[in-house]
C-alpha cells in the first residue's frame, strides 16, 4: 500500500502526487493539516515533521526523492 502524507500548500507534495498519478501509481493521499491523528501517524512513521512523506509498503521516504521512489516502485522513468 502506498500512502502520501502532505499539506495543500507544499509544492513538493503536489509534484510528488502528480508524478505518481502520471506514472499510474495508485496511492492514498493524507492531508496532515486537517487531522491531528494523521499528522501524529506521519511523525511516528518518519520521526520528523516535514512533508511530503511517502510510505511504500512500510518503507518511508521523507521528501520528494525522485530517484529513490522510482527505484522502490520500479517505475520506468
Amino acid at each position, binding site marked *: 500500500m502506498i500512502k502520501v502524507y502532505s499539506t495543500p500548500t507544499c509544492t513538493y507534495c*503536489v509534484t510528488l502526487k502528480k508524478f505518481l498519478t502520471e506514472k499510474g501509481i495508485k496511492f492514498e493521499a493524507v492531508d496532515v493539516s486537517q487531522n491531528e491523528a494523521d499528522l501524529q501517524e506521519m511523525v511516528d512513521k518518519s520521526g520528523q515533521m516535514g512533508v511530503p512523506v511517502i510510505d511504500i509498503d512500510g518503507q518511508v521516504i521523507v521528501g520528494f526523492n525522485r530517484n529513490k521512489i522510482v527505484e522502490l516502485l520500479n517505475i520506468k522513468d
Partner: protein
Amino acid sequence: MANKKNTLTSKHFNKNVFYICVLKNKMLYDLIIIGAGPAGLSAAIYAVRKKIKTLVLTDSFGGQIVDAPMVENYLGLPEISGLDLIEKFRAHAKKFALEIKENCEIQKISPMSNDLFEIETDLGSFSAKAIIVTSGKKYRELDVPGAKEFDGKGISYCATCDAPLFKNKNVAVIGAGDAGQDAVWQLTQYAAKIYLLNKYPDLRGANIQMQEKLKSNEKVEIYNNYEPIEVKGDKFVKALVFKHNGHGEIKEIAVNGIFVEIGSVPASKFLADIVKLNEKGEVVIDQKTNETSRPGIFAAGDITDIAHKQMIIAAGEGAKAALTAWEYLKNK
C-alpha cells in the same frame, strides 16, 4: 586500479599514455557541468548540440527553482510553478539525452597533468578536459547548538510546506528579511503565536505593507536586535534561546517549531583552492566569457559574481559558458 596512473613516472606523461590510463580507470569526458539549475542545463544543451561529450553532476535537478512557488518572468512561460518548470527542463534534457548523475555531492576538484581535471564525488571520480561550475546558491543553515540535531524535528527551512503542521502551536521565525516576513505571514494562518527574531533594530525589506501588517498582528511578537544562540528539545524542538546583540540579555521561549530564513550562500566550498572567489564566496568570472581564474574551468549563474541573480540570466550565462568552453576545447 584506481591509482594505476600514479605508478607512471613523469616521462610517461605524454598525452596519449595518460589519456589511455585515465580511460581505463576513470570516466573521461570533454566537459563536466556541476549543477543542474537553469545555468547548468542550458550549458549542457548547448554543449551536446556542439557534440561535446558532456556529463552533468548535481545534488538536485532544477537547483533553486524548486523553492519558487510561482515563476512569472521566464520568457514564454507567463505563469508556472517552480516544480512544473523543472519538469519542463527535465523533458528538455531528455530530448537531448543529457547524461546526468543526480544526488551527487562534489568533494574535490583536482587539476591534473595534461590539462585534465579530476572531480571526486560520493558517486566516484570523473575526469574532464573542461568544467563549467553552476552549483548556484543554497540556503544558509542555522548554526547554533541544537540546530543540526532538530533539523526536520521542528526546525524547517520551508514555511510554505510545513506551516500547516503547526496549527495552534507556538513557533519562531529566525530572520526578518523579506523571506522571513513572508514566513511569518503564512504562519499567522495556522500558528497560535509567532515570535520573529530580527537581528536589526527594525524590520527591513522591500515590502513596507507587509511589515505594517506583521507589526499590527496580535499573533506576532517581534524581537528586534536578538539573535538565536541555542535550540532545545527532546525528540522534537521545545524551546529557542536567544540573545540581545547589544546589552546581551538572554531569553528563552517555548516553541514547537522554528522556521529559518537567514538568506543563502554560494555553493562554492569545493572551489576554495581551485579558482578565485570574492569575499561573498562567489566565483569571480570574466563577465564576457565566463572564464574563471583557472584555464579550463568556467562558471555561470548564481554562483558567480554577476550582478543579477535571476533564472533567465542564469540560463543565458550557462549558454555563454558552454560556447566559451567549446572554443577552449577546440584547441585541446
